[in-house]
């Protein structure tokens, strides 16, 4: 895979290119990084320890980090949304005693609702998430390919 730089003889060196290759071929990275120095600070600013290719990988790194952040935020928002929606649904079932006394096919409505009601919610949240996550990735792609 290390001969890809030659193959990818694009018109201009793209800031995305070296970083992309690095993701595929980590053995090519021989730079010694400051592994012991202030890992917490370093972890917040990884660009500080990348050395001479910092200018290119810095821009790529900013985009990647913002992609990761936005995807994480998306995941958390959808997970919390699902939890809150499920909890509200269950509490709504619990506080309406008439549901226990209304029978459909011999089963109380409250049992039926809990038995089937959460699945459509999970599918809906999942479907919406797939679209939103793909949008984030499309945004990342348009950012990096505009360079």
């Amino acid at each position, binding site marked *: 895979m290390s001969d890809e730089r030659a193959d990818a003889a694009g018109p201009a060196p793209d800031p995305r290119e070296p970083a992309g290759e690095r*993701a595929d071929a980590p053995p090519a990275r021989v730079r010694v990084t400051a592994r*012991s120095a202030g890992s917490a600070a370093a972890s917040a600013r990884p660009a500080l320890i990348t050395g001479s290719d910092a200018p290119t990988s810095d821009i790529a790194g900013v985009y990647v980090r913002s992609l990761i952040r936005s995807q994480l935020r998306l995941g958390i928002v959808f*997970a919390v949304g699902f939890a809150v929606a499920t909890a509200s649904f269950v509490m709504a079932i619990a506080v309406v005693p008439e549901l226990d006394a209304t029978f459909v096919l011999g089963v109380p409505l409250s049992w039926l609702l809990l038995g089937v009601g959460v*699945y459509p919610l*999970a599918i809906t949240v999942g479907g919406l998430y797939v679209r939103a996550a793909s949008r984030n990735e499309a945004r990342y792609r348009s950012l990096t390919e505009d360079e």
Partner: protein
Amino acid sequence: MNPAIGYAAITVVAVASALIGFYGLRVSRTTSDFYVASRTVRPWWNASAIGGEYLSAASFLGIAGLILLTGSAALWFPIGYTAGYLMLLLFVAAPLRRSGAYTIPDFTEARLESEWARRVTSLLVIVIGWFYIVPQLQGAALTVRITTGLPAWAGSLAVAVIVAVVVAAGGMRSITFVQAFQFWLKLTALAVPVIALLLVVNGGEPPAQLTPAEAFPPAAGPGDLDVYRTVSLMVALLLGTLGLPHVLVRFYTNPDGVAARRTTVIVLVLLSVFYLFPTAFGFLGRAFAPDLAAPGESDALVLLLPDRLVPGPLGELLTALVIAGAFAAFLSTSSGLVVSLAGVISQDLLGGSVRGFRIAAVISSFVPLVVALATESTGLAGSVGLVFAFTASTLCPVLILGIWWRGLTARGAIAGMATGAVLSGSAILGGAALSALLPGMRPFLEQPAAWTVPLAVLVTVLVSRGDRRGVPRGTDAFLMRLHVPEHTRHRAGPETSGRMPRQ
């Protein structure tokens, strides 16, 4: 019940599994490379295969039994088993596909650049897999005892031997087609009896043994919710799904991260449809077979109800179908687990040879057999739930933090996994003895995930922060690989997706 039906159904499934396994061996030999071939697998097939491997004894027998035994609290089990795939979708599916790792030990080693992190993860995967096989064997014991009258151990032994032989002989590899077929078999084997029973019952004959108000008392209904237990169970099931050893390799057969997401949504749909039927069985059982509501016995509800409600040949046919589906569930889940466990064991301990794989397959089938024979099943859904709690406390924090948090280090991961394993393991194994001493602690020991998972995450983060060696060198490159969509990386290349793993 007529034992001939039991013998016939079990024999047919066992022979069919063995034949498909050996036939599949020839297929996988003629295919130049399983992983190359699998990149063309469609999301629907892939999702069916995930469902086929995932739906175990707990889903097929355990949920209906637990609804009969405890009431609407049991409805949370299928909700959790399904919504676990939602969490997988939100936090794991696409990045894990892009990681190029086949197994969780592969992932931790690549992410943390640590042999030790790999070894600890492998150990946990093996323990989890073994304890996940135990309920399958107990389900087989129950099925054989109820349907043929043979002693219970014969069922566990039969499944363990079939799985060991078929896997060691090289069959039942992760062939997508076979596992996908298993899903539709299991769905049919529950759906047809449920629909038939509903039609029969709707005709008013035989009459229900309890009135609806007696069968579904509000005290066992959704209004009477134990908040701590429900929340803790949900934490275990939602997060435990992420770490199941046999699920991950299926994600690798998606062409790219986007397809992995699409597959996961289809899995959500398939599981949602499937779980309607055990739920319906449980509801029918509460009205028509209340006498089966005893610990250990209620799991037989699905096997016994068709014969009770539909006398004659039709009832026997439905019973045979249910028995076949149950056995397919035990065999497919166990063999999926044994294949992934044997892979881990042979790779890490036996040098990765074919002979090592075979030895490991036999070991992986017989260790759970010993445990299954030595212990008594008190409920299939419950014991699988405890395995999920253990998985959620050990592998889930490492997976999620490894994917989303740059600061994770090998020491932090190992400390977190050890903490989660010790806490949840001792709650699960020593819980009964401890709660006899401290009755107030009982819910916390019986459903430990709500406190063990946060503690494991906390220890992982604190130890990682304090690790003076810092984060692994390749962290940024690896995280980029996980999150950047495939076709961005190699612009305009023909091989924009479905990249092969590194050498």
